[in-house]
């Protein structure tokens, strides 16, 4: 069975509406593919990628963001693109130039900390304030809201000067178009850059780049931040995360504390249990992680592809492992003795899977049996049962089985 799917020729992609997009630097086009790899539409770029391959792509709900090498291997260019009238136009360009700043930029992956919300009330032409329905905690003076598209398909950027109370914000200029209540608003204040340098020193660093200031405003050093290929932004339960791939782990950095608060195990390891299938890009859609790889392991076999294809991992808690413990291990076959049987169930985060049914069974004679056959796991992911010994001396296999319904 062939396991390739989207067959993307370059190690970068992003997703929207269940479709897969990639930028082709050889012909300045954006390709839209379905999950089978069929090209379902193409879009021309108004502008050029300059013949340089896109290293990483992000989508904020309205814009595509691309990362490319600049004039040298220590320079990068980040472009923000928007689809207007069937053509992707460059809305903004950020130059990360090693010659004119005190940084080297050896970056293969970046994260766009973007938020989506909606207008909580309509906007008229010439208004100097807008109100949004959520994500107000992330709005700062200087935040640029992208409003639209409106009913005429038009977008506009407005800059916040400050709050006017509640969820209403003053603008530095008048709106050019009318916008209806519930229209989409997106905004990005910061980019997060996985750089192999801190300033000019070779050192894995996560840099916070302020779009308003057009400058890096903080750096967090960690060797794990070197040579990062795949990262993305994730917002869940009012916590904003930068996610990045480290080997077979997906690390969750809480950007309010800059600490790794979660780690998720992925199945990007080959059958030799040693070699990692490199992940070149990640995207999240509907609480599913899509990993872009040109190698994958399926059911005990390794596969290599000539193109890049996606593999999935659920982000929702999913039963990942169950381990059995018994005590004592040896009991007399007297039909009376008991063995404590404990099953510990964990998800892919190594967190306990709670309130899951575990089915205990044994292969003993007709006299040996499990006293509780379908216990639930507790807060620690532990389900308990007891094996009552049979009457024939033998090795007894006790099995715990678990599945997931959601």
């Amino acid at each position, binding site marked *: 069975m062939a396991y390739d799917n989207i067959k993307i*020729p370059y190690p970068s992609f992003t997703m929207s509406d269940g479709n897969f997009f990639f930028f082709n630097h050889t012909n300045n086009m954006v390709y839209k593919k379905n999950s089978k790899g069929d090209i379902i539409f193409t879009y021309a770029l108004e502008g050029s990628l300059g013949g340089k391959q896109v290293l990483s792509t992000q989508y904020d709900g309205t814009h595509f963001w691309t990362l490319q090498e600049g004039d040298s291997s220590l320079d990068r260019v980040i472009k923000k693109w928007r689809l207007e009238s069937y053509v992707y136009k460059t809305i903004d360009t950020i130059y990360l130039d090693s010659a004119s700043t005190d940084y080297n930029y050896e970056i293969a992956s970046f994260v766009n900390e973007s938020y989506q919300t909606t207008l909580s009330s309509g906007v008229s032409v010439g208004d100097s304030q807008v109100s949004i329905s959520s994500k107000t905690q992330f709005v700062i003076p200087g935040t640029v809201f992208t409003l639209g598209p409106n009913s005429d398909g038009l977008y506009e950027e407005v800059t916040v000067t400050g709050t006017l109370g509640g969820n209403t914000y003053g603008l530095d200029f008048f709106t050019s178009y009318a916008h209806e209540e519930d229209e989409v608003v997106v905004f990005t204040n910061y980019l997060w850059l996985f750089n192999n340098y801190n300033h000019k020193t070779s050192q894995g660093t996560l840099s916070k780049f302020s779009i308003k200031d057009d400058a890096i405003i903080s750096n967090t050093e960690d060797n794990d931040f070197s040579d990062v290929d795949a990262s993305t932004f994730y917002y869940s339960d009012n916590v904003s995360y930068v996610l990045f791939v480290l080997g077979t782990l997906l690390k969750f950095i809480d950007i309010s504390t800059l600490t790794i608060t979660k780690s998720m195990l992925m199945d990007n390891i080959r059958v030799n249990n040693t070699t990692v299938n490199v992940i070149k890009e990640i995207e999240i859609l509907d609480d599913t992680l899509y990993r872009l790889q040109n190698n994958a392991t399926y059911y005990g076999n390794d596969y290599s592809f000539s193109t890049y294809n996606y593999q999935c991992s659920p982000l929702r808690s999913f039963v990942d492992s169950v381990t059995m413990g018994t005590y004592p291990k040896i009991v007399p076959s007297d039909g009376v003795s008991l063995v404590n049987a404990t099953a510990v169930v964990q998800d892919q985060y190594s967190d306990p899977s709670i309130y899951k049914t575990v089915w205990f069974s044994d292969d003993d004679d007709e006299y040996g049996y499990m006293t509780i056959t379908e216990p639930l796991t507790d807060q620690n992911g532990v389900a308990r049962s007891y094996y009552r010994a049979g009457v024939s001396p033998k090795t007894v296999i006790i099995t715990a089985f678990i599945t997931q319904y959601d």
Partner: protein
Amino acid sequence: MANENLKFRKPHMTIVDGYFYMFDDDTDMLLAKADDGTTAFSYPFDTLMSETVLSAEHDGVNFWSLEPGAANSMVIRRTRLENYICTLKQTVSLSSPSHHFNSEAFTVEHYHCTISGAYSPGATSITINGEMPGQLSGGMDITLQNDTYLETITVQNVVANVITLTDPIINSYVDSDELLFYNYIWLFNNADGTDDSKGALYKINAYSGSVVQKVESGAYRGINACTFGEVDHFSSFGIVDSLMFVKASNLLFIDISSFPLSYYGSMAMDTIQSDDVTIIEVYDISMKERNLYRLQLKATYYGSTSSWSTYNYQPATFNPMVASISLEASPNVIAANQISSSDLIARVKDQFGQAIVARLVYFTEDDPDGEITSGGGGTNTDSKGEAAAVYRSGISARLVKITATVDQT
């Protein structure tokens, strides 16, 4: 199977009455070919050619050709078939110190109307049916034609849909006979003024050759194929006089009456090689009713790309057809317990990226123990072009292939 047809030796074409025309500078002839490549007729030029034509157009009466001129200049010629000779009627030299002209695609804005009432020789005023479709003013030409006569007369002035002529007509015409005119040349230039790093769309007076309007955009750079025509296949826009040009593998539509000029549609074309990445270059396009003809040196047929030594046409239709279907499963990782389920959404779109409504979609899966529990027997797409179904898992952990199928009916 050989998929060649026209076997043109030059990278341009235009279509008139179902025949494909090419300016052959090797033989100084205008060749008319049938769609299988058979030469139907040839017309010698009264003025010999000096350059290979890059792009050709026909406005209903005149042939137009684009040729390279001296450095930073282009030449556009207007010719007409007269007594079996292709006669040069006009040469527009595009040369200016303010502009670098470097183009491979142009078209002519032209209109076909019908006249209202009958007119006898000597008439100096003509009324057309309906509103004036495009700008027509004093100094421009109209051509009146029917099955018997054809004459071209200069306009003195236009008031609403009444055209006053500088000279009286010399033939008789009846109600609904054709009235044709052209007014502007649209040129996709690989420079914006003298900036060779940019692209621009130039609107040029077809009579004087003067630049009327220039719109800078990178999207207008590197264009090889364009044409002009009346387009009616975007239901939300009605009939639009459209400038169409090929950008990568898309045909982009510009409403020339819009200000600023804006695209109002895009059509995905099958100009991608079998590697799913490389674009097949389109050298010229021509439109005939709801068909578009693309001139190419390569084409992909059913997963295989053919290359030719000559230029041949590939057709595309403006009739909305099922062009793509995409399928999304949510969640797309579930337990193999014959209980867990995944919601499926198939999205069906036409070649313009618009939703295909009320079309049956069938869902199938290859899991011997799993099943499509809802929607498998066929579900109609809704107003967003979406059809839904539900898959219930089997009992073996495996990659399950779910297929959504839709037919063009």
